[in-house]
Every structure is written in structure tokens, then in C-alpha cells.
């Protein structure tokens, strides 16, 4: 077999000549062939392309379960354990969300994932004037440990892994979770789950912040330090590209900014005096899975490769567990359309498949109605079944990295990797990610990409089926959506007032004073916050105490 690179390159040239001879008869469609992120891509890749980008089997690909983990972090991948099917849920009161959690567990879901409402995400109680109209709308309302206990009532905390998507006041919510587990007598090593706790991406993209950047990052490092010592199986930070992508970033920007955020937490933790191998194994990641099938697969593979090398070479990590990028993924909310919403089922299935072929460890599939409202039980079920069909029927879970070695996929992986590394280099030159975020660099890059994409849609250079092409006159919506009314707000506030009436308020005051002192003296806040929430200090009381020391973050209205 003539498989040396030179021969292949020659054969390819010959083929290209024959190709151009046919294009007069079969011309290409008059569009620019690029990925969703507008990266120009080739029609075909051959082994000489890989040679040209310097691809090396042993160095760049290797084997599953081994450095640099391009092919996945487990040796036997999904043959050993399927990815965790984890549907993000949370709405209305803790009681209502608890019912959804139980439904999902009964239907075969293997982990929980909690969505909090806007007031909770911003560190306000349900009875705050700032919470007006927002209680229970985008997630569940949690103002005290009493709400937390209601939320997880009847759920075996030692057996289920729980993910909590919260960042600004994450340290307080985590304190409530730890305190609850302690009250229930769950051994600390059995407390398993993930706190999002990625504050940098809040300033970059999701915009639910409390304090200025420096003290906010300090709180994150406090949770890493405390968790490493006391809750060895808790993932302290879920470094998140999801929101960065949803805010309009390209795949490369998502990858680069997320990894740069992760690097900032690693550097800050090392500065705190921790050994990298002590805490790095508990860092996890969370990426978007968007529409462009191969670009997404390449992104996940490149992510693992870059992180492994960074951890080993730059930070001197010695434990393979520190090198592995373990990631959750969620299908792209922004890709869903309110127009012809049934089409969303198909988008989600394609995206989920890309996530699985990209080797993710955990997956959330969006529901078809999520662009209209929070999902109904029925819509959530279709989304979960989509994962189960992929896992049990499609056969893809039989293989470790089934697309590894594909000329195209390896070429794209390398390209995405190189472009992400170029961004990381730029951020290094700015003095690291914290500086870059303070200067608004990633924010501006994402804003430009979002605007560019919108312009492409307007010019129909990019197509959203049912939105800018193949539109149809639509009848009334084909399904019901979930509607949260404002009575939740009233009921939750009444519950909170009853709690405040019956708790020991002198003790609360005392606890909050201890939190304040810890903040002022720059101590780790975790122990004092755990104590405060145990005695029914509310979320806002703790956050206001911290705000009184740290101040609040404000962003100017640039666009």
C-alpha cells in the first residue's frame, strides 16, 4: 500500500485536478463553507493535512484514559460507565422542584442539577424589594437552610450526586448544603457533587455577580481550600464555558476563555499555598454543545489535550487526576427556536450526539420548549429519552473515541487547539485572566462575535431553520408551557417570615458578626458561614454582611 505522505500528497493533487474538472458541471453552492463559529473548513482532509499541521499520533492522540486524554479520560469510556444523565431543574418553590427531582430520578436520571432563581443567584432573599417578580421564575428560590432541606427532602444525599448552578453567593449555598448533609449524618466523603462557583465567567458572560472581582475570587479559593480538606469528593468549581458560548462566543473563544479561567483558579490556589495535586483533581468543567457537529467534537478533544499539558507542564502537576479534564456539557440553549419548536428535539439530538462523540462525562439535554419558558414534565422527558436513545440504541457508546484518527476530526482538533492557544497567549501577555476580565477583554470579544453572528443571520449567511429560512405560518403552539405565577413569591416570603420569627435572632446576629470579622481579617470564610446558616441566617443576611466589607461590583453599560 502506497501510504507514505509524499505519495498521498501527489495522489491528492491528481484528485484535485479531476475535482476541478467536474466543478464546471457541478459547481459548489454559492456559500462560504465555514463552521458555525465562522471558521473556514476544507472539503476534505487527507493524511498529508495532518502532516502539515504537525500531528503526531503518540504525542497528540495516544490512547483513551492516558495523557494527553484527547481520546477521553477513561480507559474503557462508556463501556464502563455511561455518561451521567443530568437534567438541570429548578423552578418555583423548593417543594415543587423537589417533586421534579424525584420524577427525574424515577425515570432513570443518574444525578441532580439545581437551577436557582435570579434573587438567589444575586444573593437576595425572596422578600427583598429587588426580588419583585423574579421569585421562582428562572429556578428555585432558596433563602435559608430550611429551603435547602425542603429542596432535598427524601433524596439520599450520600447516593446521588448533586450539581448546583450558582456563583456569586456560591459559598453560602455550599455552606447550606454541607450543613444540611452534616445534620442528616451523611459522612463527608459521601457528599458528592459539583458547585458551579465560577465567578470569572459571571463578569465575562452570565452577569450574576455580587462583589468586586478580587474578593469574589477569594471566596472561590476559600471553597477550594475548605473542600479539599473536608469534603474530598466534592467538585469545588465547575469551570464553565457554557454561558460564555451562549453570550455569543465562538467555539474557540469558549474554549480559550474557559481554560484561562481555570488557569486563574489554579494560580490563585497555588498562591494560597495549596499543592496543585491536592485540589486540581476536584476541578471540573462545563461546556456548551452547539450545532456544528465536528467543530464541537474537536472542541472537547482539544479541551482535554490543552488542559492536560497545561497542568503537567505549566503547573507541574504530577497526578494524572490533575491532568484530566472532566466535563459536563449542555446542549445549546441559544440554538433553540420559538418558531416551529418541535424542530428543537432534532437540534438537541444532534448536539447531544456530538457531546457523546466528544467524550463528555455528563450531559444535560435541553427541552424543546425552553426558549419559551421553563420546561414542562413532558418536554423534559423527551430530552432525557434522547440521551437514553443515544446511549442504548445508537451503538455509539460501544467505542472509545470513535472518530479518533479521522483525518478531518484530527485536523479540526488541532486547528481549534492552536487558535485557543493563541488566545491564551494573548491573555498571558495581558497579565492573566483576572486582569483581562478587569479590562473587559473577553467581554468585548464575545460582544463582537455575537454581533457578527447576528449580522450573518440577517444576511442569511448562517441559517436557522424556521427563523430566517423555511419559515412557516404557525398555528397556536402545539404544546403547553410551564407557567410560574406570582403566588410563589408570596408563599415563600411568608415561609421566610415565619422562620425569622422562630429562630434565635441573638445567635444569628452573633454568627453574622463572626462572618464579618473573618471577611475583614481575610480568613477562610467557609467555617463561619456554615455556622451562620446552621443557625438560620438567611442567604441575604450573609451576603449583605459580606457586601458591607467587600462592596458591590458594577459594570458600565458598554455595548
Amino acid at each position, binding site marked *: 500500500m502506497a501510504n507514505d505522505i509524499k505519495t498521498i500528497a501527489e495522489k491528492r493533487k491528481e484528485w484535485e485536478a479531476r475535482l476541478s474538472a467536474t466543478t464546471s458541471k457541478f459547481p459548489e453552492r454559492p456559500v462560504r463553507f465555514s463552521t458555525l463559529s465562522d471558521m473556514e473548513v476544507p472539503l476534505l482532509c487527507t493524511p498529508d493535512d495532518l502532516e502539515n499541521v504537525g500531528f503526531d499520533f503518540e504525542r497528540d492522540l495516544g490512547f483513551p484514559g492516558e495523557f494527553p486524554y484527547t481520546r477521553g479520560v477513561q480507559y474503557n469510556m462508556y463501556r464502563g460507565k455511561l455518561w451521567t444523565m443530568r437534567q438541570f431543574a429548578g423552578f418555583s418553590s423548593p417543594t415543587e422542584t423537589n417533586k421534579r427531582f424525584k420524577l427525574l430520578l424515577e425515570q432513570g436520571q443518574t444525578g441532580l442539577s439545581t437551577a436557582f432563581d*435570579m*434573587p438567589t*443567584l*444575586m444573593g*437576595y432573599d425572596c422578600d427583598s424589594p*429587588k*426580588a*419583585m*417578580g*423574579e421569585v421562582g*421564575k*428562572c429556578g428555585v428560590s432558596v433563602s435559608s437552610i430550611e429551603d435547602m432541606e425542603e429542596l432535598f427532602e427524601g433524596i439520599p444525599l450520600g447516593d446521588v450526586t448533586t450539581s448546583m448552578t450558582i456563583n456569586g453567593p456560591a459559598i453560602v449555598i455550599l455552606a447550606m448544603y454541607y450543613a444540611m448533609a452534616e445534620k442528616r449524618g451523611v459522612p463527608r466523603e459521601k457528599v458528592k457533587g459539583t458547585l458551579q462557583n465560577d465567578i470569572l465567567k*459571571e463578569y465575562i458572560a*452570565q*452577569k*450574576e455577580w455580587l462583589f468586586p472581582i478580587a474578593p469574589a475570587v477569594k471566596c472561590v479559593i476559600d471553597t477550594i481550600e475548605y473542600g479539599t480538606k473536608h469534603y474530598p469528593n466534592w467538585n469545588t468549581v465547575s469551570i464553565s464555558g457554557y454561558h460564555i458560548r*451562549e*453570550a*455569543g462566543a465562538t467555539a474557540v473563544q469558549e474554549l480559550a476563555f474557559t481554560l484561562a479561567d481555570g488557569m486563574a483558579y489554579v494560580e490563585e490556589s497555588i498562591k494560597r499555598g495549596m499543592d496543585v495535586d491536592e485540589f486540581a483533581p476536584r476541578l471540573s468543567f462545563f461546556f456548551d454543545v452547539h450545532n456544528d457537529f465536528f467543530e464541537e467534537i474537536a472542541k472537547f478533544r482539544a479541551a482535554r489535550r490543552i488542559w492536560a499539558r497545561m497542568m503537567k507542564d505549566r503547573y507541574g502537576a504530577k497526578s494524572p487526576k490533575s491532568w484530566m479534564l472532566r466535563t459536563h456539557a449542555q446542549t445549546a440553549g*441559544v440554538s433553540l*427556536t*420559538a*418558531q416551529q419548536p418541535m424542530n428543537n428535539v432534532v437540534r438537541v439530538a444532534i448536539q447531544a450526539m456530538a457531546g457523546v462523540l466528544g467524550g463528555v462525562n455528563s450531559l444535560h439535554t435541553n427541552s424543546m420548549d425552553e*426558549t*419559551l*419558558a421553563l420546561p414542562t414534565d413532558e418536554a423534559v422527558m423527551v430530552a432525557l429519552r434522547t440521551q437514553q436513545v443515544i446511549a442504548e440504541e445508537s451503538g455509539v457508546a460501544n467505542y472509545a473515541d470513535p472518530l479518533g484518527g479521522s483525518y478531518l476530526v484530527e485536523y479540526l482538533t488541532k486547528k481549534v487547539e492552536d487558535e485557543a492557544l493563541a488566545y491564551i497567549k494573548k491573555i498571558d501577555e495581558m497579565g492573566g485572566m483576572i486582569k483581562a476580565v478587569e479590562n473587559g477583554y473577553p467581554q468585548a470579544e464575545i*460582544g463582537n462575535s*455575537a*454581533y457578527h453572528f*447576528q449580522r450573518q443571520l*440577517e444576511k442569511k449567511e448562517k441559517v*436557522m431553520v424556521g*427563523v*430566517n429560512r423555511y419559515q412557516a405560518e404557525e398555528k397556536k*403552539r402545539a404544546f403547553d*408551557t410551564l*407557567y*410560574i405565577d*406570582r403566588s410563589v413569591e408570596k408563599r415563600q416570603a411568608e415561609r421566610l417570615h415565619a422562620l425569622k420569627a422562630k429562630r434565635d435572632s441573638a445567635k444569628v446576629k452573633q454568627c453574622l458578626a463572626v462572618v464579618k470579622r473573618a471577611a475583614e481579617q481575610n480568613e477562610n470564610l467557609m467555617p463561619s458561614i456554615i455556622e451562620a446558616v446552621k443557625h438560620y441566617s438567611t442567604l441575604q443576611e450573609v451576603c449583605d454582611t459580606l457586601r458591607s466589607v467587600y462592596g458591590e461590583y*458594577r*459594570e*458600565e*453599560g*458598554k*455595548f
Partner: protein
Amino acid sequence: MSQTTMTPAQRNRIRVLIAKPGLDGHDRGAKVIARALRDAGFEVIYTGLHQTPEMIIQAAVQEDVHVIGISVLSGAHNALVPEVIKGIRAAGLNDTLVLVGGIIPEEDFEGLKAAGTAMVFTPGTALEDIINYIDKSAPSR
């Protein structure tokens, strides 16, 4: 796509306030709209995030705006939008055109319109349609 009705120079006199009320942090849409309107020739002011209705009312009065575009993706529109409209009308902005954009369930359109919203734009709306709408409907003062 319909024909645009004004030239960028004609739009220059029209001041548009893009507002993000409440705790909602989803600002991708608001920023893209703000930029598109500015590129089309309008004078655009963006409030930034996490504004109370009072802050928005104050900004609207101060800039004497012709148009307010309120962006809400958190579900809090029924509580926040009427507050803003009540406030600007009370402050004498009688003809200011109020537009709402975001994740708004159809069943809420009527209530928002009854409260004084001229138009609700949901995801998938073309930028050009919004520009055309403002061209047609902004007060002529």
C-alpha cells in the same frame, strides 16, 4: 424584509434607551440590539444591567427619550414593565414608545400591551424589523 423608511441621518434625532431591569443578566440581546440601532443611525443609550424601574425612569426622563426598549429574559416582565411605563408617563413622557424584548410567553402579550407596551419582540425577530418599527412608530417630536 420590508423597506426601511428612514435614512440614518433622519434617525439621528431619535433617542433610544435600551434598558435591563431586574436581576436578569442575559444581556446578549440587549447589546446586539443597541449596537444595531446605533449602526442604523439612532442615538442609543444603554442602561447596563440590574436596573430598578426607578433607575430606568430617571434615565428616560433625563435623556428625554423617544423610545425605550426593555429587555427581560427572566420571566419578571409582568412585574417590571408596567412599573417603568407608569413611572415615565407620570414623569410626563407621554409619547415615548415602549418596546419589550425577550422571552415573553404569548399569554402575557395582552397584559403588557394593556399596560402601555407598543410592541413585544421575541427571539428570532430580524433586527431590520425592529428598526422599521421604530422608523414608523417613534414620536415625531
